C-alpha cells in the first residue's frame, strides 16, 4: 500500500514529502472506512499507531534515519501532525463504532413475526363445572356456594345423618383437630359433599328455591386412578309447591342430554342418601358404545353417573327452624349431586384422575 522507501533515492523535497504524507493519510482513511466492527477498528489502530510495531512509527524512524539534518525538524512536525490526525480519526471511529454496535443490539426488526404468548385456557374441571352450571342456569337455577370448612351440623346432622348413623362412615371425613370439647354439631370438618349448601341456602331464603352448587369437597381417601382426596361436585336443589319425582326425572334427563348429546338415555335405580327419600342412582346409556356393551361400561350398556332423590322431610324440618316456609305438608323438592371429575373423565376420555391436578402443560394445553 505504500511506496517502497529507498534510502538512496528518497526525495526529501518539501513537495514530495507533502505528497507522501497525503498518500499516507489517504491510505489510513481508506483502511478506516473498511473497518466496521470494534475489533477491526482496534486492530487497525494498533497496526498504524502501535508504539513498537505500528506502521507509522516504523515509517517515521526509517525516514528520519536518512533524512538530511535540515529536513528532520519539518519531517518530525509532519509526522506528529499526521499522528494527531489519525489518533482523532481512530477515536472517532471507535466511538461511532460502539454506538453502532449498541444500536444494532437494540434494533427491532419490524418485519419479524411477533413473539407468540401462550393463550390461557380453562382447566378441564372448570370447563366441565361451567358447562354443568350453564345447563342448570338455563333452566332458571341460580348459583350457590358455601365454605369448604363446615360444621358437623351442616355437613351431616341437618342432612339427616344423625350422630352414630352408619351412613356417616360411608364418607371418610377429614376433621379439624382438637374439637373434642365442642358440642358435636359445632365441630369443624372439611365438607365431604356440597350438600351442606342446600341447608345454608334454605336457611337464608324462603321457598321456592332453584339452586345449583358447584364446589370442592374432601374425603380421607387414598388416591388411585379414579379417586382423589380432593374433588369437585355439582349439587342441585329445587324446592317448590308440587315438585314431583317426574320433575326430577325430566330435569336430569334433560341435563344429561344437554351434556352428552340428545341420543343419551337415562334410567333410575333405587338407592339411599340420608337427605332424600326416595333416593335413586341415575345411569346413562353408555356414551362410548351407545348401549351395546363395551369395556368402558363393563358390558352392561349403562354407566352410573349421579345420585338424586326427593328431599327428605327431616331435612325440611331443619330448614323450617329458620324459615317456617319449608313445611313438608305444603312444599316438596328434589336434590341431585354428581362428581365433576367423573363426568370430565368420561367426556374427554381421561383415564387417570391425577392428570387434573398434575399441572402438566402438555395435558392442559389440549383444552385450549
Amino acid at each position: 500500500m505504500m511506496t517502497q522507501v529507498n534510502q538512496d533515492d528518497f526525495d526529501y523535497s518539501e513537495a514530495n514529502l507533502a505528497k507522501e504524507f497525503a498518500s499516507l493519510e489517504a491510505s489510513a482513511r481508506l483502511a478506516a472506512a473498511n473497518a466496521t466492527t470494534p475489533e477491526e477498528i482496534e486492530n487497525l489502530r494498533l497496526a498504524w499507531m502501535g508504539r513498537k510495531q505500528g506502521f507509522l512509527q516504523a515509517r517515521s524512524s526509517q525516514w528520519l534515519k536518512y533524512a538530511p539534518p535540515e529536513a528532520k525538524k519539518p519531517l518530525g512536525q509532519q509526522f506528529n501532525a499526521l499522528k494527531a490526525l489519525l489518533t482523532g480519526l481512530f477515536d472517532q471511529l471507535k466511538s461511532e463504532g460502539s454506538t453502532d454496535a449498541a444500536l444494532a443490539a437494540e434494533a427491532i426488526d419490524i418485519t419479524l413475526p411477533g413473539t407468540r404468548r401462550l393463550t390461557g385456557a380453562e382447566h378441564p374441571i372448570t370447563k366441565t363445572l361451567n358447562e354443568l352450571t350453564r345447563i342448570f342456569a338455563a333452566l332458571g337455577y341460580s348459583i350457590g356456594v358455601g365454605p369448604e370448612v363446615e360444621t358437623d351440623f351442616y355437613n351431616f346432622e341437618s342432612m339427616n345423618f344423625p350422630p352414630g348413623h352408619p351412613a356417616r362412615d360411608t364418607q371418610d371425613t377429614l376433621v379439624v383437630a382438637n374439637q373434642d370439647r365442642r358440642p358435636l354439631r359445632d365441630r369443624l370438618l372439611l365438607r365431604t359433599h356440597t350438600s351442606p349448601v342446600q341447608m345454608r341456602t334454605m336457611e337464608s331464603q324462603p321457598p321456592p328455591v332453584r339452586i345449583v352448587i358447584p364446589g370442592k369437597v374432601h374425603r380421607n381417601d387414598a388416591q388411585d386412578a379414579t379417586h382423589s382426596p380432593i374433588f369437585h361436585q355439582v349439587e342441585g336443589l329445587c324446592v317448590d309447591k308440587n315438585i314431583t319425582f317426574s320433575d326430577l326425572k325430566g330435569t336430569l334427563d334433560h341435563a344429561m342430554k344437554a351434556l352428552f348429546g340428545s341420543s343419551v338415555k337415562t334410567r333410575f335405580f333405587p338407592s339411599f342418601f340420608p337427605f332424600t327419600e326416595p333416593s335413586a342412582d341415575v345411569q346413562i346409556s353408555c356414551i362410548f358404545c351407545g348401549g351395546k356393551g363395551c369395556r368402558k361400561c363393563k358390558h352392561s350398556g349403562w354407566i352410573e353417573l349421579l345420585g338424586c332423590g326427593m328431599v327428605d322431610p327431616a331435612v325440611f324440618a331443619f330448614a323450617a327452624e329458620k324459615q317456617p316456609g319449608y313445611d313438608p305438608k305444603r312444599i316438596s323438592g328434589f336434590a341431585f349431586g354428581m362428581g365433576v371429575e367423573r363426568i370430565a373423565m368420561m367426556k374427554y376420555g381421561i383415564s387417570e384422575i391425577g392428570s387434573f391436578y398434575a399441572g402438566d402443560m402438555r395435558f392442559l394445553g389440549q383444552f385450549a
Partner: protein
Amino acid sequence: MKTLTKWLRAYLPALSVSDAQLAEDLTLRGIAVEGTFDLGPGNGTLFEMDITTNRVDAMNHYGVAREAAAIYGLPLPALDFALPAAKSSDKPYPVRIEAEDACGRFTARVLHNVTIGESRDWFPGAEVSTYFALLEQKKISNAVDASNFAWLAMGQPTHVFDLDKLEGGIVVRRARKGEKFRTLEGVERVLDS
C-alpha cells in the same frame, strides 16, 4: 358384601327364579347386586352386593332371603335355633356394664363340655365347610366358625370366650387413654378413651 345364592336357597326352598333374575329383581328393589360370579355346577352364584346403610337388616344372608321372600311372595321359614333350654345357675358368670351409654345390653350364654375341634356341617342348611370355602372365609375351629356363621347368616356379631382362660368376669367399659390392646390378628393397638 358377598352373598351365596346356594345359602339363600337353603332359606327359601320355594325360590324358583334363576340366579340372574334374582340379582336383577333385588337390584331393582334397592338391594344392589353389583357383580355376579358363577361358582360352578351345584354351587350357585356369588353376588357381590353393595347394600346401602339404610338397609343394615339386609347385610346378611337371612336378610337378603327375607327381601327375596317379600319380592316373590314366598314363605320364609323361621330360623331354627336347636339349642337346649338354658338352666339357671347358682353362680352366674359375672358381666358388668360400665359404659352404659355405649352398651345397653349384653347377652351371653355359658356352654359346658365343648370339645374344640374342626367344624362339621351341623345340620341341613348349615353347610359350614361348603359355604366358607365358597366365600373364602377361613375355617378356624368349631367355636369361632359358629360365631362367624351366625354373623354371615344373621348379621349379628358375636364373640366366643374360653371360660377356662377368663379371669374375674366380663367388664364392658371404655378404654383408658393409651391402653394397649392385642387383637386376634396379634396386632398390638394403642387405644384412646
